């Protein structure tokens, strides 16, 4: 069935569109974007007073299937994505087994096809079993559909291996995504190092554990000419290094996550383990620097680093809790509140950083924009609606977010993925979990 979205405020960063237009969707593709389209055969979705934009793309998602289906599955993660306005998400390679071979990539694609909700793109490992010792079969991973490579939370500490991974990745045109952390400097740390860690007596992780590795990887990108993408930037020093790398013309891109521009290390004060995340929540100065970097384009994209953990895992002493917080369902609202409401970004700029920019980095040519012929992945959301984050209104199987109880502004209402209308008035209309 063809769809016609009428009377919405259409935002398309790629085509620099911000005006009231109609969008006609035919056979899963965008066929026309124009004023007052009349098409008898199409079902009409009225978007008057709402924002119509490319569906969001999350380039950093942890889906725990295979291996930790008690935390998140492809189905529950997809549902959380839909609720948050994402029609494309990734699977970071730290599944069990890790995504270090074709078989796991194919398994994820086949499971994703069964759920038929959102597009799911596996990210392959840099090294076998994420051990940082031997390169994974990167060519095979790419051929089977991996869109990037990363060892994420098990960063490659050996600079020679990282250099080889960058060199090798050039042949495939994929980015190498680096979680920058010097593991010796961060060893045993559970929060940002500074006044707050001193008061709480928790072992700190210095900002330099990130920026030292950002610096190393930028130099290796310069040496190799490869495409480097810096994951979840959390410090002002990292921002400065990336800004300089871009000035030099290196192919370096970067992302940050909503929690890094919303919360500082002061949030750890009550020992809420939902504030335990890597990299850790930093200082107010870092928040400021990250917002500036999103504004001037130093940081290209906003990702979620959605990292589900069960309540049993998180409901323990701070030292023993795993790192990570979920983010798919709160990312758009938090970003809207912290970046658009505060004047750092225009709405068009925000959409760019949450759809077009990550799609470009991952070479997803038909995603993140509303050009004629591109995939009909479209989000309709309302910037006037506020809602409260509660465990029972989250689709994610895990509820580990520090934003429980927060009232957020702006809410995804309708989502169309591949031309299919899969969320209506914030209700997912297929694949109810059993």
């Amino acid at each position: 069935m063809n769809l016609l979205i009428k009377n919405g405020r259409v935002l398309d960063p790629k085509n620099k569109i911000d005006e009231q237009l109609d969008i006609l969707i035919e056979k899963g593709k965008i066929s026309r974007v124009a004023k007052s389209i009349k098409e008898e055969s199409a079902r009409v979705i009225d978007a008057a007073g709402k924002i119509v934009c490319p569906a969001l793309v999350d380039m950093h998602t942890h889906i725990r299937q295979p291996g930790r289906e008690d935390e998140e599955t492809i189905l529950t993660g997809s549902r959380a994505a839909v609720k948050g306005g994402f029609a494309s998400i990734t699977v970071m390679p730290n599944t069990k087994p890790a995504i270090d071979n074709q078989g796991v990539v194919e398994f994820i694609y086949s499971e994703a096809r069964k759920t038929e909700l959102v597009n799911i793109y596996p990210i392959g490992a840099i090294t076998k079993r994420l051990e940082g010792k031997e390169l994974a079969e990167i060519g095979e991973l790419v051929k089977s559909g991996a869109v990037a490579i990363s060892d994420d939370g098990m960063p490659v500490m050996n600079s020679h291996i990282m250099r080889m991974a960058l060199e090798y990745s050039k042949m495939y045109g994929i980015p190498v995504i680096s979680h920058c952390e010097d593991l010796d400097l961060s060893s045993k740390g559970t929060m940002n190092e500074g006044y707050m860690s001193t008061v709480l007596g928790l072992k700190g992780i210095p900002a330099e554990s990130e920026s030292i590795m950002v610096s190393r990887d930028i130099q290796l990108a310069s040496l190799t000419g490869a495409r480097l993408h810096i994951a979840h930037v959390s410090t002002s020093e990292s921002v400065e290094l990336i800004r300089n790398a871009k000035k030099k013309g290196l192919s370096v891109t970067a992302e940050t996550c909503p929690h890094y521009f919303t919360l500082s290390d002061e949030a750890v004060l009550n020992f809420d383990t939902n504030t335990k995340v890597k990299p850790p929540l930093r200082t107010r100065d870092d928040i400021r620097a990250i917002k500036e970097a999103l504004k001037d384009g130093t940081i290209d994209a906003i990702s979620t680093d959605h990292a589900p953990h069960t309540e049993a895992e998180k409901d323990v002493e701070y030292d023993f809790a795993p790192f990570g917080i979920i983010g798919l369902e709160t990312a758009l609202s938090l970003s809207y509140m912290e970046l658009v409401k505060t004047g750092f970004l225009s709405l068009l700029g925000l959409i760019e950083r949450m759809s077009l920019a990550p799609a470009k980095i991952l070479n997803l040519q038909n995603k993140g924009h509303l050009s004629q012929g591109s995939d009909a992945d479209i989000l309709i959301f309302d910037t006037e609606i506020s809602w409260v984050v509660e465990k029972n209104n989250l689709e994610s199987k895990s509820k580990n977010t520090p934003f429980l109880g927060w009232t957020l502004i702006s809410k995804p209402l309708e989502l169309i993925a591949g031309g299919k209308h899969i969320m209506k008035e914030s209700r997912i209309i297929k694949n109810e979990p059993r």
Partner: protein
Amino acid sequence: MVEWNRKDLLGLEELSKDEILFILNTAESFREVSTRPIKKVPALRGKTVVNFFFEPSTRTRASFELAAKRLSADIINISVNSSAMVKGETLKDTARNIEAMKVDIIVMRHSSPGAPHMLARSVKSSVINAGDGSHEHPTQALLDIFTIREKKKKLEGLNVSIIGDIAHSRVARSNIWGLKKLGANVTVCAPSTLMPPGIEKLGVRTTYKLKEAIEGADVLNILRMQIERQSENMFPTIREYAIEYGIDSEKLKYAKKDVLIMHPGPINRGIELTPDVADGPYSVILDQVTNGVAVRMAVLYLISGRPESDESTD
């Protein structure tokens, strides 16, 4: 008149000056009990206290045990090997079990900062923090402050130097909160590798030079050096630490004539303190131990006597 309304004692950070003084004054009246031939009052008869220790400790545990017994409470000890606690479900489960046994007060020692706070949130029983990692050790600081006040008759304007591994010391943190609230001047002295970042924001003077910490100080509170810090390369050798930061009679020549030497125990003799100083005329280390029982009696008494919250009405 101040009243005690708190369910738990988790740290000195959140206490007001008046609350701290209230505990100290209550402890004054309990100190006398320990000098009687029959060292017992019936204040906590029928109450149950659990010593819940996830870290080995002889002194603090014994001190709480004596305090509870002198108040006629029933007390049991549960020691859990921290290394067996890889998963925290045990803490949660044990908490539920303790709750089910209708315990009134849980005294908890744990290696992880915030563990007693987590317990306090999940049980109706009162929780007393007997040391959580490097975070706080409120009863130790209270007994330190009690001892200083006893000897110096005041706290306002006194110069107190805390010397040693400040970075990993819950004793230092609790002392800083308490002493600052009561108007004392606090200096912290540590090798640069054991000085935590931002500590000066707590209103303390910092120095790496031991002589600066000793000169003009009314009190030297010497911290125990954990031997394992050496393996973390926090300082080159124990020998060098003892030479640079150990207190001996030679270094005490810079001290005021009426300086007090304190130590939370147990002492590494010959490392942070030489035996002649530990046992010498300035030392009030054994007074600390005696006062510890009185202070813990006061804390147990006040916590158990807080007005009942009507939990049944929801």
